[in-house]
Structures are given as C-alpha cells and as structure tokens.
C-alpha cells in the first residue's frame, strides 16, 4: 500500500545519508526534504516551533534550488545554533521563499547526533512521478 503523502525518508549512501521528501506539490516535497534533513541531526518532533526564520533562494534549475534550500538551512542552523522542526515553502519557477520554525539547540533534550556539513549534488533529483506526486532528494555530507 502506498504511504500517505506527504512524507519524508532517508536513503542509504555509504558514509553519508540521503534525504528524500515526497509531496503533492513541488513545494511540499521541498518541505518534506527539509524535515528529512532536520531528522539527520535530531528528531524534528522534539523541536519546539518558538522562532521563525525566513529563507529565500533562487537557482538556475529546480535541482540546484533544492541543494540551495537545504544549504541555506544548514547555514541558518549553524549560525543561529538552532534546530528546525517545521517548514513552509512556496516556489515560483526556480525561486523559493520559505519560513522555518525551530528553537535553540538543547543538547540534553534534542540529543543531536551529527552536524550536516552541506547538501551535495550526489543523487540530486527533483521530479514529478506519473501519479502526480513530487520527489525531491539528494545526499547530505555529515
């Protein structure tokens, strides 16, 4: 039986981890991919949505846009020492505007496992499936 959409998952890649988001729209797939990224570091369910951060990116194509989006989140998490647990994305063409909610890292409560260094172009793909669902994925370097 097909999984209820939207959802996110990780896929295996040697030393690192692949993140994949599946949604009814492109924007929803990007939101789910961001949740998959957040879950590499800590369980998003443990992260309270106390602070909102706005993110905007633009890229030559939607695949680079996905990498840019995830890298923007890596940057914001590191500079702000924050974790994110919720995302709202809108995409027009190859331009993205988003809001991410989260809170400051609390090692005791979030028990973060590992930092993400960056999103890579390995197995980078953004595509619409025959059934209309969108998939957005890539491998992240940890």
């Amino acid at each position: 039986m097909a999984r209820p959409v939207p959802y996110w998952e990780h896929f295996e890649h040697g030393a690192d981890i692949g993140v994949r988001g599946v949604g009814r729209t492109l924007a929803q797939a990007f939101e789910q991919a961001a949740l998959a990224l957040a879950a590499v570091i800590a369980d998003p369910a443990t992260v309270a949505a106390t602070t909102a951060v706005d993110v905007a990116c633009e890229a030559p194509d939607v695949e680079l846009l996905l990498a840019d989006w995830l890298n923007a989140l890596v940057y914001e998490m590191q500079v702000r020492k924050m974790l994110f647990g919720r995302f709202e994305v809108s995409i027009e063409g190859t331009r993205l505007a988003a809001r991410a909610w989260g809170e400051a890292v609390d090692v005791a409560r979030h028990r973060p496992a590992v930092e993400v260094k960056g999103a890579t172009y390995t197995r980078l793909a953004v595509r619409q499936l025959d059934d209309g669902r969108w998939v957005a994925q890539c491998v992240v370097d940890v």
Partner: protein
Amino acid sequence: MDTSKLVRRSENEWVIEPDSDPRAQGMRVPGVIFATETLVREMDEKVYEQVANVAKLPGIVAASYAMPDAHWGYGFPIGGVAAFDPEAGGVVSAGGVGFDISCGVRCLHTQLKSADIESCKTLLADALYARIPAGVGSTGAIRLSPSEMDSMLAGGARWAVDRGWGSAEDLERIEERGCMAGARPEAVSEHAKKRQRDEMGTLGSGNHYLEVQRVAEVFDERIARAFGLAVDDVVVSIHCGSRGLGHQIGTEFLRSMAVEAKAHGIALPDRELACAPLASATGQNYLGAMRAAINCALANRQILTHLTRQVFADILPAARLPLLYDVSHNTCKVEEHVVDGRKRTLYVHRKGATRAFGPGHPDLPAALREVGQPVLIGGSMGTCSYVLAGVASPAERAFASACHGAGRSMSRHEATRRWHGRQIVDELAHRGVLIRSPSMRGVAEEAPGAYKDVTAVVDAADAAGLARKVARLDPIICIKG
C-alpha cells in the same frame, strides 16, 4: 567491484584502462586502484565509475588514483588522488577536495607511559571532555573580529602560535610549516566567515575525535625512534577540519563551478565533478579561499592542542606535549613531481588521502628528513590508529600519497539499528577505553563495527608501497563530537 573489468598490474595495483568499458569511454589517463584483492572486491562499483570520471577531466596527469580505503564520494571518490597541469588546461575541483577542507589528524607526544595515566584516566577523560567543545551546537571561547578573522585565514597555525596558543617548535611539525601560502581571506564569503565566528577551537561531530592513545606495537624501530615513539608511550591524536568555514566554501564553490562549467567549455560526466580551469577567475578564487580554509583547519587544531596541553598541565604536570606531526587529508596543493622523467608543477588533489613525502624531501623538518614524513591514519572509535612513514622518492607512487583512515562499511541507520550508544560505551569501558560524547546516537552511528578494518587498509598501503607501517596506536580515552 567487479575485478574482471580491471587489469591487475601487480599484487596490489589494479588498472582501469581508458575505453576498456562503456564507463571508461573518454578517459584521458588510466585509473589506478591500490588495494588488496579483498579490499578491491569490497569496494562499491561506484568507486570504479568515479575513478574513471576523474580521469576524464581536462589536464589530468599520469593517472586517476584510488587509495586502499577508497569509497563512494561526491564526484571524486573519497580516497582519491588526481593531479592537474595548468599548462595542459588543467582544472581545480571543489568536489576533488571535499566539503571539510583540510580535515586532518595531528598527533602529540605526552612523554608519559601508559602506567603514568592509569590512576587518573577517568579524571583526564572528564577534564578533556569538559574543556574540548564537541558535538552539534558547541562553540569555542574565542570570538574573532573581522580583522582577526582575516589574520587567522592568512596565518593558520602560525597566527595561533603568535596569539600564544603553542610554540614555534610546533610549526616545524605541521605541513606548510603551519601556514598555507597563497591564502586569500578576501576570497572567503561573509557567510563562510560568519559560520566560523564562534567555531574556533571546536572539534565538530561525526567521525571527528580527540583520543588519548597508547603505542601498542612498533613495526619499524628505526623510524619509530626518529618519530619519538616507543611501546607504551602515551600520545594524543586530534582529528578534525576547517569547521563551518570550510563547509561553506566547499558548498559555494561546488555550486559556482557546476553552474559555470559549460561556459568554461567543460563537459561534466556528473555535476558533482564540478571544476574550473586553473586559469579562470573562479579557479583562482577557489584556490585562494581553499587555502584560507586550510589555515583555518591548522589554526583550529592548534587551538585544540593548546586546550589539551592545559588539561594535561592541570592533571599530569610532568607531561610535555610536543607535536609529532600534523597532516591534512582533504586538500589541493601545488607540488613539483617528476612525470615521465620531467619535473612538472602540478595541482595535486587529495580527497581522503594523506600526503606521504619520502626521506630527503626538502619540505620535511630536519629531524624527520632522513626517515620520511609521518603519515597519521585515524581509526574508528575504539579500534586503533596507525603511524606510517612516506617512502623514498624513486618508489614514489600516486604523487606521494597514502590512505587516510578506515572508511565506513555500514550506513549510519544500519549502525543505529544494530547498536545502542550506551551499550557501546559500556563495552569499551569494560575493555579499558573511556568514551565521552554529548550524543549516544552519535556514538551508535560511529560504532567500531560500522567501519572497515583499518588494519587491512594500512597493510594494503604498506604492501602497495604507498607508505611504510611504523606503529599502531590503541585508544585509552576518546572524546567524540
């Protein structure tokens, strides 16, 4: 990897001939994998593809090499070595260096024997863990103003020593004498600098660590003596890199190189192979920024060394912690190498590979010149690490490069399915190895069983003539990020 697609040139040398397979179409030079038959069979088929793809890049010289610990990376394999000639249209690749620019290992003597620390092991472990910032969200005590940031990026470990975090003798024992020339702080973006603002003197996470180790076995007495290593000596090894600054530089230049490749007339077999001509603004800017990130990594390891020395001074005042050596295993460096009888200036990319200069190399400090460069190989948590030495230049292979570590054999998910962090910590404590980490999930993901056997990798490097085995280091305390 399917060995039927390879030509076995010698016991531990496997060659991908250009055009020998559809995946090998367009290779400008052969691919050469240094490994035992067991290791080469265990390698992912993707390593074949990546070694072949690197051989297709403009200006590559001699061969696209893979070390015995090679595994599937981004564009370039991890454990890959490739050199490019600017006079032959050569390129520089951000993916050929990796995200964690100048990630590396340094090893400190302590002038103590393992019996000397037995009674205060727990105290030492707790004090190191309290002093060394490790793990997600941790910050260092040092805040750099914009001008100090630029001084650090230009000066590397030399900057750190000038600030009082170490001595001039330390610099002798660091590649490039502790300061990478040609760094251009102005080529480093504000984003990258901002990521580094409070990250100086932090260990990071993942496979990064600080270990107190015991010399458990010596394989080459003469070289070990020159390195100052004897059985039962206590040493400290630090494995980490250029932190957020290097990651951001890698991310930004991977993107600009990928976007501009077409304009530079470069057809990329894979977007991750993104590169720019050495003779281009992007290529030159990357080199300037990447060298600044090398300095950041050298400064970072120097500050961590200073913190380590403070902890030892508090607990074991008799200890002195001179530096054995510091190596970086994610770099691109300008070096002279003899190729086909002719000396050429090449841009050597080592991604998950360690430079291994042999005896007599002019870049080595006088005390090490006779025996060759120390090559520091980090193991996985709780297993062991190795000290190797570079071999003489007539036998120089792969532009004087060797392996860098064990390499994972299992995904992080699989590791957390198999093990619990607490259980690993308890089992290792039972064997006398103290683990300190902020994250039990992190410990599970880094379980010793999730890595390849580092001994097999080092034995292969030794047998292939890449470097000579000198000593094995067993862990006593591990601070894990």
